[in-house]
């Protein structure tokens, strides 16, 4: 049945630890991971609670295919109410941690309350305990990880932890596992910090029970062959990682620079994935648990610093978005953000927002105190202000630590915050890709590229090529991508498999692993249920359809150059159609009948 059948409930206020049965009836409707944990969160908390209060819960959840041989089956998700958007947060991470949660015997961990002092949770196959973390508080991610592996006495134990940014409740703090892998977005690290929980260590050797092992194995073999034979997952990603996108997106004219004031950057090549290889910084590729793609990059800089990354998004927001292209600075800043436990996208876009605010007179020079000016092109500013934000060391950085929207709004210029629903946008300019722009606007966690990656059809041509400027027919694609991605995430697989695999492929693997006999349509229906459930949570949290929009810039300031010159984003043409396809009211509300039909209420 692929589920371990057990989950942990840990109350950090009173220190109690209980084992409960995984609700398999709900798992049949919500798959697992993001879907199932989202549903449990909705059942157990009032969506209006303060995200950083003890009343919020924090759930670490695997999917049914985590800890199986399915390609990329090692993922986990962190589900909670997030501080950045105020809505449902679900951050997905790779590496091995998710598989090891199940090897320890559990599908998920539900954390409640708030510990009176810093602690960490040790989840070993034979023993689960809450331990003192006084000696770890204030420590960065690598030191915390190494210390906890040593303390566990098991060199293969896996650690997910927060850095100083999570402890200081930075609204875009990440949770890092195995040092370099991030459940990055929506501020899940701040929720962990608010509970005084520094880390969770997992280890075990249990296998996930699969009803028909031989059948499952044969299917998996077949899917791996499909992944290896695909141009993107078999060639592009393994050779260059996600960073191969720099030139692609720049040449296609939707590579935001200078806080999205421009749609291309002149010297993109200098910091691109190709340059990383040509300069000899890339030492080797590596991959997550059971991954045949292995898109991760190990990098060593001329200064001797080593680490993983940068991924496409990070390279962009630590470089061209800020007006520079120095690969050394970009990589070093990436390592630093990981060590501090900061989400790179929100950190970079918040700094770019501050740079535009300074340029336009909304930040005074004195506010930098003795630090470097937040000025486009100033490479020295990046590392300095990342550190200041993580530790909230001066007044300016302390305000920036709430994210760009709150920061810019309190200074009267929200238009410089490149966010949707309060979360910073990733590296595709909506003026150059109409469907992807909609994906940000209506996304359940706002500015985000992994909830419905329409770049695949609109730019890369997978599974077929769509015109990025067309609006007709796009909302049907968005609907399908959102639903399918909900199922892929919830099953515990990596989204990158979807460049090669179809909805039928996922349905095959899920049926064989769980023993359910759902049609592909029924699995996609689970995705639709998950999507609506998340939106329903957000609505109850006070985030209504009025937030289904984008920063003004994309409607008022046409793209300055390139193939999309003169284009704006055409949201009003698409939004009514999207609501209609979803079966919502013209105002974007989910009607009661829809909630009943999907068995959400």
């Amino acid at each position, binding site marked *: 049945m692929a589920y371990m059948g057990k989950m942990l409930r840990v109350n950090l206020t009173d220190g109690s630890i209980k084992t409960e049965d995984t609700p398999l009836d709900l798992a049949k409707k919500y798959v697992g991971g993001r879907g199932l944990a989202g549903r449990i969160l909705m059942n157990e908390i009032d969506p209006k609670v303060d995200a950083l209060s003890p009343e919020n819960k924090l759930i670490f959840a695997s999917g049914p295919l985590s800890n199986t041989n399915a390609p990329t089956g090692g993922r986990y998700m962190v589900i909670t109410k997030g501080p950045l958007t105020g809505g449902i947060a679900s951050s997905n991470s790779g590496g091995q941690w998710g598989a090891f949660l199940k090897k320890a015997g559990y599908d998920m961990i539900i954390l409640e309350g708030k510990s009176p002092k810093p602690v960490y949770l040790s989840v070993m196959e034979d023993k689960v305990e809450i331990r003192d973390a006084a000696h770890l508080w204030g420590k960065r991610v690598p030191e915390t990880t190494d210390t906890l592996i040593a303390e566990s006495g098991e060199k293969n134990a896996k650690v997910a932890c927060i850095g100083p940014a999570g402890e200081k409740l930075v609204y875009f703090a990440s949770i890092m596992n195995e040092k370099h892998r991030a459940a990055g977005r929506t501020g899940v690290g701040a929720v962990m910090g608010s509970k005084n929980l520094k880390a969770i260590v997992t280890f075990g050797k249990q296998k996930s029970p699969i009803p028909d092992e031989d059948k499952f194995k044969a299917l998996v073999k077949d899917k791996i062959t499909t992944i290896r034979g695909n141009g993107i997952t078999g060639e592009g990603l393994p050779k260059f990682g996600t960073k191969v996108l720099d030139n692609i997106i720049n040449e*296609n004219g939707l590579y935001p620079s200078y806080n999205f004031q421009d749609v291309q950057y002149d010297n993109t090549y200098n910091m691109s994935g190709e340059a990383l290889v040509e300069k000899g910084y890339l030492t080797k590729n590596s991959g997550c648990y059971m991954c045949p793609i292995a898109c991760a990059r190990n990098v060593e800089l001329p200064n001797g610093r080593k680490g993983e990354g940068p991924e496409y998004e990070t390279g962009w927001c630590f470089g061209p978005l800020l007006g520079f292209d120095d690969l050394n600075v970009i990589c070093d800043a990436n390592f630093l953000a990981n060590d501090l436990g900061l989400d790179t996208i929100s950190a970079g876009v918040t700094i770019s927002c501050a740079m535009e605010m300074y340029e336009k007179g909304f930040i005074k020079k004195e506010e930098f105190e003795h630090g470097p000016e937040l000025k486009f092109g100033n490479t020295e500013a990046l590392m300095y202000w990342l550190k200041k934000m993580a530790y909230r060391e001066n007044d300016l950085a302390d305000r920036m630590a709430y994210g760009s929207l709150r920061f810019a709004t309190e200074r009267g210029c929200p238009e410089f915050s490149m966010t949707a629903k309060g979360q910073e946008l990733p590296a595709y300019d909506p003026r150059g890709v109409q469907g992807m722009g909609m994906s940000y606007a209506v996304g359940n966690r706002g500015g985000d590229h992994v909830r419905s990656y329409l770049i695949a059809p609109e730019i890369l041509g997978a599974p077929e090529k769509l015109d990025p400027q067309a609006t007709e027919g796009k909302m049907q694609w968005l609907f399908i991508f959102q639903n399918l991605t909900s199922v892929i995430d919830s099953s515990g697989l990596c989204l990158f498999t979807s460049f090669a695999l179809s909805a039928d492929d996922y349905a095959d693997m899920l049926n064989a692993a769980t023993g359910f006999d759902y049609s592909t349509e029924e699995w996609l229906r689970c995705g639709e249920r998950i999507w609506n459930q998340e939106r329903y949570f957000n609505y109850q949290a006070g985030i209504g359809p009025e937030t289904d929009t984008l920063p003004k810039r994309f409607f008022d300031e046409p793209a300055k150059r390139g193939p999309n010159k003169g284009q704006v984003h055409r949201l009003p043409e698409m939004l009514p159609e999207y609501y209609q396809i979803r079966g919502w009211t013209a105002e974007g509300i989910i009607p009661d009948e829809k909630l009943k039909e999907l068995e959400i209420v």
Partner: protein
Amino acid sequence: MGMTVKFFATLRAALGVGSVELEHDTPMTVREVLERAEQETGKPIMQELFEDDGSMRIGAMVLVDGKNISHLNGLDTTVQSETLSVFPPAGGG
């Protein structure tokens, strides 16, 4: 007239050059440009981009001044002095 053809990702490494400059008297089709580029570099390009049946491989792209030929006239798109950007299968997210 002159035009530039830029190569990226694995194609750049395989060809050993980042771009080629082509001189021509009359407008050419994208197909002719790519064939000329093959002659100039002495290395295969078309087979990296297209399936045997002539369709574009998933993740590959040819852009004319940033516009994908899939939304122009495909390999028959005529060009004069534009810049071509050529990507073998690549992608990510």
